[in-house]
Each structure stands twice: as structure tokens, then as C-alpha cells.
């Protein structure tokens, strides 16, 4: 996790009029290889903004 933002309204519920769930958003850094395996381009990282409920605790 690179940085933490918010909390922001969780779009999954907000967009469906199911109330406002405020959640922190984490900028999570992935090495391209972790996502795409051997197809990954070299020296590439992807940072994705993910709401807290999208994440699971690391084992």
C-alpha cells in the first residue's frame, strides 16, 4: 500500500441508492508480473485505488 485517501463514499452502494458507506481508499502498488505473469512488460508497476472492502487481510 503506497498511500491512504478519503474516506470516500463506496460507489458500490452509493450508485445503487443503498446508502452512503464511507471507506478509506488505498493506493495499492502491484508489480506488473504479479498481475500478468510472464506476459508482463519489464520495469512496470500499476497503482490501483481500492476501497477498503475490496481488500483482504494478507495471510
Amino acid at each position, binding site marked *: 500500500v503506497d498511500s491512504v485517501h478519503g474516506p470516500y463514499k463506496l460507489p458500490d452502494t452509493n450508485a445503487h441508492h443503498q446508502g452512503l458507506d464511507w471507506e478509506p481508499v488505498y493506493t495499492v502498488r502491484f508489480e506488473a508480473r504479479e498481475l500478468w505473469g510472464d506476459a508482463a512488460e519489464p*520495469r512496470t508497476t*500499476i497503482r490501483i*485505488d481500492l476501497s477498503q472492502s475490496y481488500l483482504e487481510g494478507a495471510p
Partner: protein
Amino acid sequence: MTSGAEHHPHPPSDFEARARALESLLVEKGILTSASIDKIVDAFEHDIGPMLGARAVARAWIDPAFRERLLAAPKSALTELGITEHQVEELVVVENSPDVHNVIVCTLCSCYPWMVLGLPPTWYKSAPYRSRVVIEPRAVLREMGLDLSTDIEVRVWDSSSDVRYMVLPERPAGTEGWSEERLATLATRDSMIGVANAANATPSAAAGGEA
């Protein structure tokens, strides 16, 4: 909205029809006037274009203290330039260097830093760009005319939440002593999305005028 049917031989799409119905209803009920709608559209097309982002980039190139503030607290740095219509909760400015190249995407939809870059280009909203730039950014950038050495790390930023991103491109060589206004002409929209470098210091790019 002036994208009238006269330009479209085919019937309007559902979205166009819906937008027009909403607009006429709001006008009819006296909630909005057509003039105020035109003013907003005009502002996005002409005033809130990438020139606001370009001004911030040019200032950052000539003023290291401003650069620090732009990277640390983008919205308050923009306020210094009189850019106060932020519209979003949070803006993050990511800086290119000789070793790192940043590129912005919204894989889910079309999140875009409107307040500094104006209206997004059509390709930014297209499924191929959104899906491919996370998988093979170097190939996508190469197709768009930017061939990055493998020595350079590519960082893809997926703005899938409320945070918006803007790239601070590198200052082109050969621009020592240029005025802020002239430098701003080199900070193109594409360079602030990260699919290009800032324009080269060619005579045509310099036509923006020297202050």
C-alpha cells in the same frame, strides 16, 4: 447544448434524447436557463481546458518551491494560481523523471482531472485504452508515439476512486531562460495524462509567444 440534430442525419441516441429532455424540462420549470447551460459547456470547452494544468506545470518548472507544493498539496498550490474550481475531493500530481514515467487511466469508467485538463479526449474513455494501458503500457505508449527505454520504470495510475491524477512532465531540454507563458505552451494535455512527453522546444511550439 448546441450539438443540434442538424449535424446528425441519424436519430439522436438514447443519451442525447434523455439529455435534451432533461434540459428542456429544467428550462421550462425555470430551474436553469439555456444561456447558463451554454456558459458551463463553453467554460469546459474553452476556459477549463488543459491550459490550467499547463500553467501549473510551467510554474513548477521555473519555481522549485512551487513544484514542492504542487506535489505535496496540489489543490492549495492550484489555488495560488487562482484555480479554485477543484470539483473533486483530491488531486494527486505525479512527477516524471529521467528514471520514471507516469501514465494515468481510469479502468472502470472515465475519471479524469477535469479541473486542470478540461474535457477528456475520446480515446481516454475508450475500452481499448482503458484495458490495454494497464497490461501493456509500453506498447500502448509506443503506438501513441512515445517509445520509452526499458531503463525507465513505467508507473500506471488507475484512478478508480475519488482521487484524480495529473502527470508533471519533465521540462524539455533547451528551454533555459524561457518565460512561464512560453513554457506553458509545451505542457500539452497528452503530456499531463502521461501518453506523451512535454513538447520539444521547437520554433513552432515556441510560437505561444515570449513575455
